[in-house]
């Protein structure tokens, strides 16, 4: 799969390696199912193919005459012997820099905190970038990779956030334990919403998810569940202290937690996209009928992708509630759904690193677009009063025209251009 390397992939590869080490022991039970699958693939005519690839090289005398050196295709002269198709090494190198980035990000807490040159507020902002990146990634899995549009993922963000808030506030559950609960709830909700949504294509799916997003704040304000949700007031939380007497402020500690979660979720995203179900997800987007013909149960896969995407966004919501120490119905209005979608488009649809850029976009550009518009008005002494968000709109339009593949796509094109120029000169 031609997915660019993620910041997380270094850690991903490391953990994957670890898991492989323990695989034999830990997964003994699970191996049963896997065995079946192995036989399934082997049962196909694998060995005949081996003789055939030899035939393709014109080394099998019997078949040589019949197809031999016929001009198969333009580059038939460059037939590569099977021996030359082993390399998988190139994947290793590219793990280096994402690893460095993650290590640097983690060590920020060590020197940044002590030196006092990163304030708690800035840690909170960094955490929010990562939280939104997780959400953008989740929507990207659905929209970018599976081709289903959602204007309503703010609803799952809200579900995750309220799950965490209610569990912590009303039931005194440990904040870390609220994360898996939020994940499971959001998966179920996403899957169930995804199932009927399967009948809807394009605009209609967008409409249904739009309805979901607009309904959520109203549901949260609903009088009969006020005891749980706190109604219009919402729920106030207190940020957890760092455990084990670690010399970290709550903001620094939560930054570490959020960073770990982001690494985990990016790693999972990478794993998924590089796997059998991941290829099926993309195949469905590219060519649904052919995907069915390949044996893909598209309905089940699309609903499951909807569920997984909701898990990402729900976890982001839960983390947001914890670090922001507050949830209220009006934090989860339609704007949030749009923000996540815009983040995905700006970062680069169907791009994992793009999700990180999208997260930063949601956090910074969105939050400061209003102020920027005002500043701009003052700066150039415009005779007219600009609407708030004008700069944001202009930026967005410009970006979509200049970089239709999002920032990640634009950067990739740029790098490819530079490389080509170098190799020419």
């Amino acid at each position: 799969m031609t997915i660019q390397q993620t910041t997380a992939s270094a850690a991903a590869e490391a953990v994957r390696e670890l898991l492989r080490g323990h695989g034999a022991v830990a997964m003994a039970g699970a191996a049963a199912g896997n065995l079946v699958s192995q036989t399934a693939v082997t049962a196909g005519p694998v060995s005949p193919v081996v003789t055939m690839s030899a035939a393709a090289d014109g080394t099998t005398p019997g078949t040589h005459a019949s197809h031999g050196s016929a001009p198969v295709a333009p580059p038939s002269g460059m037939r590569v012997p099977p021996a030359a198709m082993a390399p998988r090494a190139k994947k290793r190198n590219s793990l280096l820099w994402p690893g460095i980035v993650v290590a640097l990000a983690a060590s920020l807490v060590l020197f940044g905190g002590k030196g006092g040159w990163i304030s708690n507020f800035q840690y909170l902002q960094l955490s929010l970038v990562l939280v939104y990146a997780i959400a953008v990634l989740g929507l990207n899995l659905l929209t970018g990779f599976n081709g289903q549009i959602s204007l309503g993922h703010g609803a799952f963000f809200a579900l995750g956030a309220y799950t965490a808030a209610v569990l912590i506030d009303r039931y005194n559950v440990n904040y870390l334990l609220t994360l898996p609960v939020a994940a499971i709830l959001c998966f179920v909700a996403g899957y169930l919403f995804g199932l009927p949504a399967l009948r809807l294509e394009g605009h209609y799916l967008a409409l249904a998810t739009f309805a979901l997003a607009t309904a959520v704040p109203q549901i949260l304000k609903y009088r009969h569940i006020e005891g749980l949700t706190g109604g219009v007031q919402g729920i106030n939380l207190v940020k957890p202290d760092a455990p084990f007497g670690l010399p970290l402020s709550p903001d620094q500690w939560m930054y570490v937690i959020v960073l770990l979660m982001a690494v985990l979720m990016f790693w999972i995203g990478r794993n998924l996209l590089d796997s059998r179900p991941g290829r099926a997800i993309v195949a469905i987007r590219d060519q649904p009928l052919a995907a069915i013909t390949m044996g893909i149960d598209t309905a089940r896969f699309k609903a499951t992708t909807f569920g997984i995407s909701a898990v990402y966004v729900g976890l982001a919501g839960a983390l947001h509630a914890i670090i922001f120490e507050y949830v209220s119905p009006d934090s989860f209005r339609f704007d949030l759904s749009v923000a996540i979608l815009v983040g995905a488009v700006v970062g680069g649809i169907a791009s994992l690193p793009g999700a990180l850029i999208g997260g930063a976009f949601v956090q910074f550009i969105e939050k400061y677009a209003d102020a920027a518009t005002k500043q701009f008005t003052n700066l150039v002494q415009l005779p007219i009063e600009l609407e708030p968000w004008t700069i944001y709109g202009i930026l967005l339009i410009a970006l979509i025209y200049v970089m239709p593949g999002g920032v990640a796509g634009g950067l990739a094109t740029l790098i490819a251009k530079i490389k080509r120029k170098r190799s020419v000169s």
Partner: protein
Amino acid sequence: MVASVEKVGGSLGTVPGAPLLSVRSVTVRFGGIVALNGVSFDISEGHIVGLIGPNGAGKTTLFNCLSRLYQPTEGDILYKGKSILQSPPYAIAGVGMGRTFQNVALFDNMSVLDNVKVGCHSVSQAGFLKSAFGVGVGAEEARIEARARELVAFMDLLPYTDMRAGPLPFPIRKRVELARALASGPSLLLLDEPAAGLNHAEVDVLKAQIRRVRDLQNVTVLLVEHHMSLVMSVSDRVVAIDFGKKLAEGTPAEVQRNADVVRAYLGTEAHA
């Protein structure tokens, strides 16, 4: 998936001695149009069967019935003696039918290799949870990788292995599609106009490849084709249809002599 288990079992639900495929009075109507009108024929294992007929005769419609993308209005389709009309479309690959599309339906944004890997879907089963954590899927993934690379080599696609399938030249895309259809090790391969858009030399190669596929992959082939010399030289049997009705069936020589066929089809193209 149940389907792939069936495949491993080999002959679950197979009726011994039955033809591989039995099309029984299949009729398909689209509103007023009768695309197929009571078509019946059998395909024996190991054969290459040509399905010919002018444009609009209903050939692709028949393929779509076999793939369960269309539901026949009447009639039945038996695979190894068992009706497939109860199976959902996604189960057909697992039953043992692979196909290509007249207009080439590749996953354009995926690499050639990944396209072929998707072809392995029905004979593998790694699910979401295990794949997400990369646990217990390594062996199967390695097998898929090996199988896909072998087929890429088999179809002479090595130089394109990691390229996106979308922008590749049409003849190459057709070969990618064939490799993808073979990935699951089907027992019946449905090829919808594989020679369309190919030049003379490429058609010769294709002819050899179809034979090679039949001989080395142990597949039976149902071949829809306009290219008369290709069909007649490569097929063991030929079925001719026109306006949704079967005109003739037999050896290539027999069908070529059939008066109806000559009138409907060969009359206009015999000299091409």
